[in-house]
């Protein structure tokens, strides 16, 4: 039997080829024709989606298929996360194009780096082996470090990139250390084999436990949950908004996949151990993220702390260790990525040539300047706050239900109380937009594609909420055996 199965990795191969092609093609392009790069990148995403959708392993009724000597896995969950990664990255490209043009930073590097990061994310999503996980993680992380320093003349950007790099490397080191312990205890790098060995290796319990702890630390760094969150506000703040947009959305889906593969597929037998760790991490993130966000006057930092609390909510979905629990966490991470992309899209919309609209005050009186985009931002904020009938509510509901099913009702109560506290800072944005007078009368200017995509992204907050059943059903089915 052919154990390589190259065809299964067709989307990854396609993205790799296109990223390399764009890298080279750019050299032969006259500066005024650089717009082609954007089109090429969008085409890459569209075809990647088509290739992913035309996976033939599902035809035979299989729920998953393995390639490269079991190092690579295709399953419904992975395909779904990849599809949403393309979608959100498509949004990111449209927003970033406008941003980069305004800040005279429109170069092909952004697209190649983002596509390489996407490749890393796709590998991470499909990884079925510790080495593969590490490979995907590093590819996406290294591309992200470079992206953060994309504005090379900005001190803040370089500082953020440095911080991100140092902390990120440390997290990778932790992860590697944990992986080596797991390998030592189970004698395998393959997740399925680890799972089988971990169930039997009673005498290796201690070393497995230590390995697990280091893995969780590494994961927590990548997700950005308290107490491993310190890089998030600085990186979000320091990076150009077009890059923050990317970092805050797509990689989170990969982090979810990584957590699922490591904790459930690999170490599902240690559920009782990691459940406690995740419960503490979730609690701290929800508490600290929401409290710290209140004190921010910079919207990028506010959204950074709000991300921390959202990641805490996602961890709630892991607690019961059931298929429904994971599907709610996945639903949350998808919804979060869409919300976050839209929120940073709004920041970019309000940025004018050379000045980022990163202060909360820049949103003052937006309703009078442009009532449609004020409504879009209001929908995003209500969605993040978890007010029905916006989609963020459904995400919060599902993970809270998961926590209650895990028997952790007290944690659910703390989570909802802090989501009320969190509602305050989202409401403050709405207050600025609707109740205050504008500081400038300048009209909102943005290209048509930007407006259309941002409007679509905002309307999704409402549409995915009212018609939430289909996405929920897809997420639940992704984990059905």
């Amino acid at each position: 039997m052919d154990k390589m199965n190259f065809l299964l990795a067709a989307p990854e191969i396609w993205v790799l080829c296109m990223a390399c092609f764009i890298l080279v093609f750019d050299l032969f392009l006259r500066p005024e024709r650089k717009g082609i790069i954007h089109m090429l990148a969008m085409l890459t995403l569209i075809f990647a989606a088509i290739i992913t959708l035309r996976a033939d392993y599902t035809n035979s009724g299989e729920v998953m298929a393995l390639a490269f000597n079991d190092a690579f896995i295709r399953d419904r969950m992975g395909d779904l996360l990849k599809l949403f990664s393309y979608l959100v990255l498509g949004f990111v490209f449209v927003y970033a194009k406008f941003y980069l043009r305004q800040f005279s930073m429109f170069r092909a590097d952004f697209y190649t780096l983002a596509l390489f990061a996407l490749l890393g994310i796709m590998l991470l999503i499909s990884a079925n082996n510790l080495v593969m996980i590490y490979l995907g993680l590093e590819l996406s992380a290294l591309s992200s470090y470079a992206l953060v320093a994309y504005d090379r003349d900005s001190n803040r950007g370089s500082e953020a990139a440095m911080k991100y790099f140092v902390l990120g490397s440390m997290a990778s080191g932790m992860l590697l250390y944990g992986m080596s312990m797991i390998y030592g205890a189970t004698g395998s790098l393959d997740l399925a084999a680890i799972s089988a060995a971990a169930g039997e290796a009673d005498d290796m319990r201690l070393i497995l436990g230590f390995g697990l702890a280091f893995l969780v630390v590494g994961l927590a760094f990548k997700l950005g949950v308290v107490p491993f969150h310190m890089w998030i506000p600085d990186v979000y703040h320091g990076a150009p908004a077009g890059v923050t947009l990317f970092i805050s959305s797509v990689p989170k889906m990969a982090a979810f996949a990584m957590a699922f593969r490591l904790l459930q597929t690999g170490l599902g037998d240690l559920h009782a151990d990691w459940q406690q760790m995740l419960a503490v991490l979730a609690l701290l993130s929800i508490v600290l993220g929401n409290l710290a966000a209140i004190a921010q006057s910079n919207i990028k930092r506010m959204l950074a702390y709000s991300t921390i609390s959202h990641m805490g909510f996602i961890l709630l979905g892991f607690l019961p260790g059931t298929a429904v629990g994971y599907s709610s966490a996945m639903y949350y991470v998808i919804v979060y990525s869409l919300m976050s992309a839209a929120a940073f899209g709004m920041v970019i919309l309000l940025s004018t040539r050379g000045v980022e609209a990163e202060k909360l005050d820049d949103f003052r009186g937006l309703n009078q300047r442009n009532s449609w985009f004020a409504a879009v931002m209001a929908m995003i904020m209500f969605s993040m706050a978890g007010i029905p009938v916006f989609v963020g509510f459904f995400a919060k509901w599902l993970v809270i239900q998961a926590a209650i099913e895990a028997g952790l009702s007290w944690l659910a109560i703390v989570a909802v109380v802090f989501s009320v506290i969190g509602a305050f800072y989202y409401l403050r944005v709405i207050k600025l937009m609707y109740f205050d007078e504008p500081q400038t009368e300048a009209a909102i200017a943005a290209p048509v594609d930007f407006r259309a995509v941002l409007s679509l992204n905002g309307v999704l907050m409402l549409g995915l909420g009212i018609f939430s059943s289909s996405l929920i059903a897809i997420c639940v089915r992704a984990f059905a055996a």
Partner: protein
Amino acid sequence: MEGNWPLLSLLIWLPIIGGCIVAALGSQRAAQSRLLALIVSGLTFVLSLDLFTAFKRDTAQMQFVENQPWIENFNINYFLGVDGFSVPLILLTTFFGVLVVLSAWESIRNRVNQYMAAFLIMEGLMVGVFSALDGFLFYVFFEAMLIPMFLVIGMWGGPRRVYATIKFFLYTFLGSVFMLIGLIYLYVQSGSWSIMDWHAYPLTLNVQTWLFLGFLAAFSVKIPMWPVHTWLPDAHVEAPTGGSVILAAIMLKIGGYGFIRFSLPITPDASMTLDWLIILLSLIAVVYIGFVALVQQDMKKLIAYSSISHMGFVTLGLFIAFAIFQHGPDTKGAALGIEGAMVQMVSHGFISGALFLCVGVLYDRMHSRMIHDYGGVANTMPWFAMFAVFFFMANAGLPGTSGFVGEFMVILAAFQANFWYAFLAAITLILGAAYSLWLVKRVIFGEVDNKEVAELQDINWREALILGVLAVAVLLVGLWPAPLVDLMHSSVAELLVHINQSKLPVAGAAAAGL
């Protein structure tokens, strides 16, 4: 009529979609916005009358039922239906939907389209709250309703509007998330989101108590009960007239409705053990808040406190049933209490709405709500004075007005439980008369106080129409409450069966459940 067409869906979505269209008109087209809003709300009201005519009085079954799957993976349905408790409140909602549009005709000048849109959307959502029979759907409407109200208070409110509206939002939100936990818990246990299923689901006393407290957190803030009432005076004072009217006439009723729909039938045993708590809080609200109302200098604040005090009657009427059951199995007194609470809700809707409209009329002319800025208004505004005096009398519980009927029924029921409950509740008749009439004396009667009052214009035909319609409604319910009570008779009987039945699981199942 029933089953032919989705009347309830129409009543929910017509105003919501109409509101979206009005919002899309743009702030330049004020006249069109007003007209379209009036057409939509008028049409909704006319359609809702069908609920009244086609509603079958002799059954407690849910009527006009619509049931479609919504989120199948978690057994959530788009499940609508009405019984004798919801029909009067839906009618009240659609009725005030029209009045609010009319009352804002001239007084709202900026961003008219957004104002009208907010009220239309709110109207649809409130009808949704009263007709949802799926716990999840109920919560969605219950929470979504906060958004338009938040914007209305914040955008068109008074000087401290931001403080008031954020307080309003967070207070109610905090209360309702506890209910959400309770609802999710009920789903996890029972596997269903249907409120009807929950009514029949057995729960241990411990679980019931927690659920009861969760519901209490949500509904006591909404209604509001002492001591979680403090958002209400702020919200009322800062809200524009329309906002105050909807807040007082409809939103507070949602709290009472929630007790009827959730607390009483789902957790009857916990309600039985904790009824003293609710009765105590209600009596404190009735008496203490009555005194607080007496010293207010701001007319809107005075009416707000009077609302809290009157809503104390509603909670008292609902929970007095449990105190009566402790004396014996007689359900007549209990039925009287619950019906009294319902009548009180409807009547308070009319009266408080009318009072806020009266204050709005004065505020539009003088831009002041303070009592001491007025005096002798009757001299310059005789027609207005007639209506205002009538509504304040009704607020004080004058026999012949609707205010009397509900309070009287609740007090009668309270007598069957305990003389002192009834005695304390009856104090409100004195207090209510005191603060209402004292306000009338200071504002309406006496010599013309100052130059501004001397120049006041009497109400125009539009304002007279609004107040006149309300006056007729108050009189009608006061003199002939039978049609209203008939609506809810069967449903009250059904509710009493539910709350009289212990929901505790039988011994063997209880051991397994624990």
